[in-house]
């Protein structure tokens, strides 16, 4: 009877820990936001200086956006794993 109460308490603590971890993992999404801001800001400052060359680099910008966004999504997947699995 005490064992059941102990495992129930252990499960509750584990569940609480998972929820806290899921919230902590969302800091990675903010970090991805910072990275995206740096990327697009640098592209814009270069594009305003040299608009003729900007369109040629647009595919590279989109490629960089996808890679940076992927890191934020990795941390989101960790959060989902903690919440739902």
């Amino acid at each position: 009877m005490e064992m059941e109460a102990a495992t129930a308490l252990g499960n509750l603590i584990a569940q609480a820990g998972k929820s806290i971890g899921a919230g902590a993992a969302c800091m990675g999404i903010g970090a991805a936001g910072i990275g995206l801001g740096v990327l697009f800001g640098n592209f814009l400052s270069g594009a305003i200086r040299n608009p003729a060359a900007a369109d040629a680099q647009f595919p590279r910008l989109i490629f960089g956006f996808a890679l940076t966004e992927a890191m934020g999504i990795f941390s989101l997947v960790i959060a989902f794993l903690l919440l739902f699995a």
Partner: protein
Amino acid sequence: MATAPDPIHQFHIERLIPIEIGGVDFSFTNSALFMVLTVAGAAAFLLPATQRRALVPSRLQLSAEMLYEFVAGTVRETTGTEGMRFFPLVFSLFFFILLCNLWGMFPYFYTVTSQPIVTVALTVLVIGLVVVYGFWRNGLGFLWLFVPRDIPVFILPLIVFIEVLSFLSRLLSLSMRLFANMLAGHITLKVFAGFVVSLGALGALGIGGAVLALITTVALTGLEFLVAGLQAYVFAMLTCLYLNDAIHPRH
């Protein structure tokens, strides 16, 4: 009978036609069905588009030519003329992943690339090809890939170790990028769609919130279409970059 909105149920694999051979499960699942639909969709688009080979293309042939030129330009830019032998592979990967992602955007349809086993299989194909072709073409000179140019000799062992680790991590990152984008996108869509229902159930006050959640869901669906195309492009582009590493290992 009220069930809480469950964002995970959409990834459940159902056996449509159970087939078991020697204890191994070869069932035709909903994942397999959508892979078949992807190939059927690709064939239904490309075969009629390239049938007539007119010099002045029709709209359909023009769209197929634009797709071809887009991928061919990417391959030629990153790998050079020798890498064009990999163009059929890159085009197939790009179109397969694009169609798999797009099929998943319809309601109640299953997204093939939202399962990690599918993306890992594609990644193992690409990285395996890079390693095998790299050694076949360059012999042991392929290992020059891990030695960047102009590095002071005394930190060279550390740099080589880090380069090897980063090469091995390509397996993880390439597969997980596609999988995570599809998984996270669809879960977010389902969660916000669930908000529409649960806010609307709150009565008159909740209707405003439900409308807001509906607008967010529509905006997210648009974003998901962008991500579907973008992730296919990123996978194809990274494949080209890794193949360039196999063709030209010395930096």
